[in-house]
């Protein structure tokens, strides 16, 4: 990096960037968004407030009398105008806001605005029409009947040239009477928490570096180490970046959830405004799926797939790095809206036509743009994995000898490939609708809002399998190794994965039973959704049977895998309630849905990935993880997780709708939720905090074990697949390219010769004997 900085071209680009930053118009950011002139002032008198102009507001009482009327004198000193100035249009003006009570002009030098604030007029006879012809004004203020008030006064001082150049303005704020208790807005809380997380993450990175060699802690050594990480194309380093990215956003998504759980802790709460609440649940969903789950899956795949199939690296390492670096860029786009108070507020599904309507926040445009980048990222990394699987399996490893984690990634990648173009198309249409005025989804112009739902769910449902199949793969590896038994029914496991992969494409209609879509599709997707339970059931029963006759060794990853079996079975069973249309009509958009997909996403995917972290951590870092802390993490996490999501089933059946800022308890007038719903919600909120805290144990364990854990042997758990052949941590390249490992077999296999599928792939590939060149 330092070397490349001497390159004149690099220096020139940096100089241009610096210049661009310097000359770009200055922008002010407010956590609640700029609420017009009250925050930003009138740009007709300069961009920002100046200390030269000193406003004064006289006549405010020390003791406020409710309902009394006070006469206020407004004046200012300083700035380009001066008292003896004979040019009447070179004096000044003012704007006064008050949070409570009523402002009334005394004479016609002052007028009332539509928002209740008062400002100067241009009625003086000597005035040239600009109105900045006074230095003193009088208004009357009638105090509110209870509570105090907050005044904001802007005065501007003008130089009389009738342009904004040279004018200055100043601000004064004044409080009178009792003030309401200051309460941080939800966005401030969120921004502080995310900032804290960024600081902690960077602190952890610095600490990890420091502990490697405490005596040589210097920037000159830190930067090459760090820049090596962020410029690397090595699959292990990119995998680590993906994991750090995924875990960071898992935390951010969790913070969103905690903040809106506070809002939902009691009915009629006003911790968040509706606007904030809508943005927060939208960002929670988007963050968790696209910025946490997908990168974590990609992190595992990056780390493990080349090691497991005996390859030196992924087939296309530079594309791999590109796919990762699209992620932080997309995250910035997706989040950029929220800190201006105009973040995406469409729900992660972004249903049309709301997503293209002008009632949706302007941040939706950037949110959509960010997701388009993520589509690109997923596609690029998918190409990479497909190529790796097809061309870089170790000698002797046929398709039906790949470890199950690799198989699950292959199927997931195939599914992603077939589904994500639909999403990409939909997103681009939304972006065009929102920016250049196309009308793909604008119903009033003949657009079709249902098209979005079809495109989205055609992607969205397979997407669930894309993230859950790798978790299945992890569980297969962990259970088999822990039970010291070959996975039961390897072939039926592969066929079940493929079966889920195929059927998973034609089930998406169950998200749309109430949308008014074709009754035929309703019927077909009911059947297919029911059917997808069969291959999923095969996998669960095979996992259970794998333990039979084994010698199960209890370690943290084993516990997470067993916990996964219980919670994922629950999530799978509750999923069976939706294809039954008559039940779905009641359960659709209620907390039953929320409970179901959190049992799948957290109890399935996150538990699977936690199991994978404990399983492969020694391989990745060369250090064993602390088992005691790990078990503490499992116990606290598993219990608090169930406390969070189990009661949601009940709330959903009672009819509590999701995505709502509040909920209504039954009164004498009407029937709504039972009174107990408030108690359950409070319990969920408390448990959510516990669940969040329990995950900090994992972070602590990863850092402390990574630094001080026992040295790990090559094969700490006694697994058979090829990642256990290499040292811990693995060398670079991961397997020696001149001496690739060859897969051996414990038994003679009939299918060591390539089967039909293998022959088709071989037929498609360019034969190696012509040097890989195209004919």
């Amino acid at each position, binding site marked *: 990096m330092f070397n490349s900085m001497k390159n004149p071209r690099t220096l020139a680009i940096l100089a241009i960037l610096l210049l661009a930053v310097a000359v770009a118009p200055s922008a002010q950011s407010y956590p609640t968004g700029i609420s017009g002139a009250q925050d930003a002032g009138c740009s007709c008198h300069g961009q920002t407030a100046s200390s030269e102009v000193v406003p004064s507001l006289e006549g405010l009482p020390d003791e406020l009398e409710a309902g009394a009327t006070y006469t206020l004198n407004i004046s200012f000193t300083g700035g380009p105008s001066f008292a003896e100035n004979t040019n009447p249009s070179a004096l000044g003006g003012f704007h006064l806001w008050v949070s409570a009570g009523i402002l009334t002009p005394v004479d016609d030098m002052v007028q009332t605005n539509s928002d209740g604030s008062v400002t100067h007029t241009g009625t003086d006879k000597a005035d040239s029409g600009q109105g900045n012809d006074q230095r003193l004004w009088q208004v009357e203020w009638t105090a509110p009947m209870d509570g105090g008030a907050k005044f904001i006064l802007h005065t501007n001082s003008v130089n009389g040239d009738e342009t904004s150049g040279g004018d200055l303005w100043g601000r004064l704020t004044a409080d009178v009477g009792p003030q309401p208790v200051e309460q941080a807005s939800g966005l401030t809380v969120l921004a502080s928490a995310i900032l804290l997380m960024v600081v902690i993450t960077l602190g952890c990175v610095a600490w990890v570096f420091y502990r490697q060699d405490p005596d040589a802690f210097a920037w000159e050594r830190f930067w090459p180490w760090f820049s090596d990480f962020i410029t690397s194309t090595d699959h292990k380093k990119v995998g680590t970046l993906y994991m750090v990215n995924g875990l960071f956003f898992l935390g951010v998504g969790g913070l969103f959830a905690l903040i809106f759980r506070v809002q939902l802790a009691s009915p009629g709460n006003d911790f968040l405004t509706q*606007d904030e609440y809508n943005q927060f649940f939208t960002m929670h969903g988007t963050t968790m799926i696209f910025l946490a789950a997908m990168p974590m899956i990609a992190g595992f795949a990056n780390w493990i797939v080349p090691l497991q199939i005996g390859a030196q690296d992924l087939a296309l390492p530079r594309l791999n790095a590109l796919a990762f670096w699209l992620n932080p860029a997309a995250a910035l786009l997706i989040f950029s809206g929220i800190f201006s108070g105009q973040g995406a*507020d469409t729900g992660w599904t972004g*249903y049309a*036509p*709301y997503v293209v*309507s002008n009632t949706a926040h302007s941040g939706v445009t950037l949110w959509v743009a960010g997701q388009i980048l993520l589509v690109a990222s997923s596609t690029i990394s998918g190409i990479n994995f497909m190529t790796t699987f097809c061309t870089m399996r170790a000698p002797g490893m046929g398709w039906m000898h790949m470890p199950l984690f690799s198989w699950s990634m292959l199927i997931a990648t195939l599914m992603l490939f077939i589904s994500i173009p639909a999403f990409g198309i939909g997103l681009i249409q939304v972006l065009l609708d929102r920016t250049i005025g196309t009308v793909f989804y604008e*119903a009033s112009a003949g657009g079709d*809002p249902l098209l979005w739902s079809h495109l989205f769910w055609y992607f969205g449902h397979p997407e669930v399998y894309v993230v859950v199949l790798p978790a299945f793969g992890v569980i297969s590896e962990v259970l088999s*190794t822990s039970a*010291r*038994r*070959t996975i039961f029914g390897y072939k*039926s496991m592969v066929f079940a994965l493929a079966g889920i992969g195929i059927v998973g494409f034609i089930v998406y209609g169950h998200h749309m039973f109430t*949308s*008014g879509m074709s*009754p035929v599709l309703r019927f077909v997707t009911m*059947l297919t959704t*029911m059917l997808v339970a*069969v291959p999923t*059931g*095969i996998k669960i029963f095979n996992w*259970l*049977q794998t333990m*039979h006759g*084994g*010698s*199960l*060794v209890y370690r943290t990853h084993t516990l997470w895998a067993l916990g996964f*079996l219980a919670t994922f079975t629950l999530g799978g069973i509750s999923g*069976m*309630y939706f294809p039954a*249309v*008559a*039940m779905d*009509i009641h*359960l659709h*958009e*209620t907390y039953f849905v929320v409970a179901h997909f959190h049992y799948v996403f957290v109890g399935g995917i996150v538990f699977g990935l936690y199991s994978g972290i404990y399983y492969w951590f020694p391989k990745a870092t060369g250090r064993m993880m602390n088992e005691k802390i790990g078990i503490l993490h499992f116990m606290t996490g598993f219990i608090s997780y169930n406390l969070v999501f189990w009661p949601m089933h009940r709330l959903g*059946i009672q*009819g509590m*709708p999701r*995505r*709502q*800022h*509040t*909920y209504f308890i039954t009164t004498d*007038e*009407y*029937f*709504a939720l039972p009174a107990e719903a408030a108690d359950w919600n409070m319990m969920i909120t408390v448990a959510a905090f516990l669940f969040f805290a329990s995950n900090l144990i994992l972070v602590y364990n990863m850092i402390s074990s990574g630094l001080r854990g026992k040295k790990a042997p*090559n094969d700490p758990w006694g697994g*058979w*697949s090829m990642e*256990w*052949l290499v040292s811990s941590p693995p060398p670079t390249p991961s397997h020696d390219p001149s001496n690739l*490992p060859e*897969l*051996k077999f*414990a*038994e003679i296999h009939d299918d060591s010769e390539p089967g039909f599928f293998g022959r088709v792939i071989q037929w498609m590939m360019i034969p190696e004997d012509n040097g890989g060149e195209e004919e």
Partner: protein
Amino acid sequence: MEAGGEHFWYLFDIFNFWALIVLVIVVVWLFYNSLRFRSKDGSDNNIDNFTPGVFPKENDDLRMELTWTIVPFILIVYLTYIAWGPIDEMWTADPDAHEINITGNQWYWDFDCDPLRDTEDAPESSVAMENRSSTMFYNDNGILICEITTIEVEGQIKPLLRVKADESYGFILRSNDVTHAPFFLDWGLKEDTSQNVETRLYYTPSMDEIGSSLLMCTEYCGMDHGYMTAVVEVYE
């Protein structure tokens, strides 16, 4: 009163029964296998002789695998069969139903008791025009079929739709802006409203459903989505 309709609770009980059986099988199996076949002293007994880089010996049993393919499949077929019956119940048109218009707006509901009142399609029936108004509808016998008034919900004035028990209603759903969905809590029904598509729901409230229940919006529609409520009352 209880959220969810008759079909919901019928299917829910059956599904719960089978869910419980599957769950008990899985949990008992899970605990039995994980405790019975554990390593008693925590040591590593390499039963299948795992060696890195060696594809292990096979562990399968075609009969068992077929069993847990076929048995769940039969259960699925049964569950599909019982769920099939009421699949179109709420969309099956009843030509004699009293039609009520429901229009979603950001962020309030509009009800119309007599959608035919001002149209040319209005039948030249015996129903006297003075018995019709958009907020009230009487049938031929002068019995009140539908009425719209207002009610206070948590300090806000919301529409109150009154319908008669044992009368068949067809709700014609539209939207003036984005997608909404009225959720009839007590009946366990919901359906999206769209701007350029007319969707419908049919329902006959029973005598057991007499009383008022909250109607909420269950398709996210923007800022005040959570407060887009109304009340539906079934009277005798």
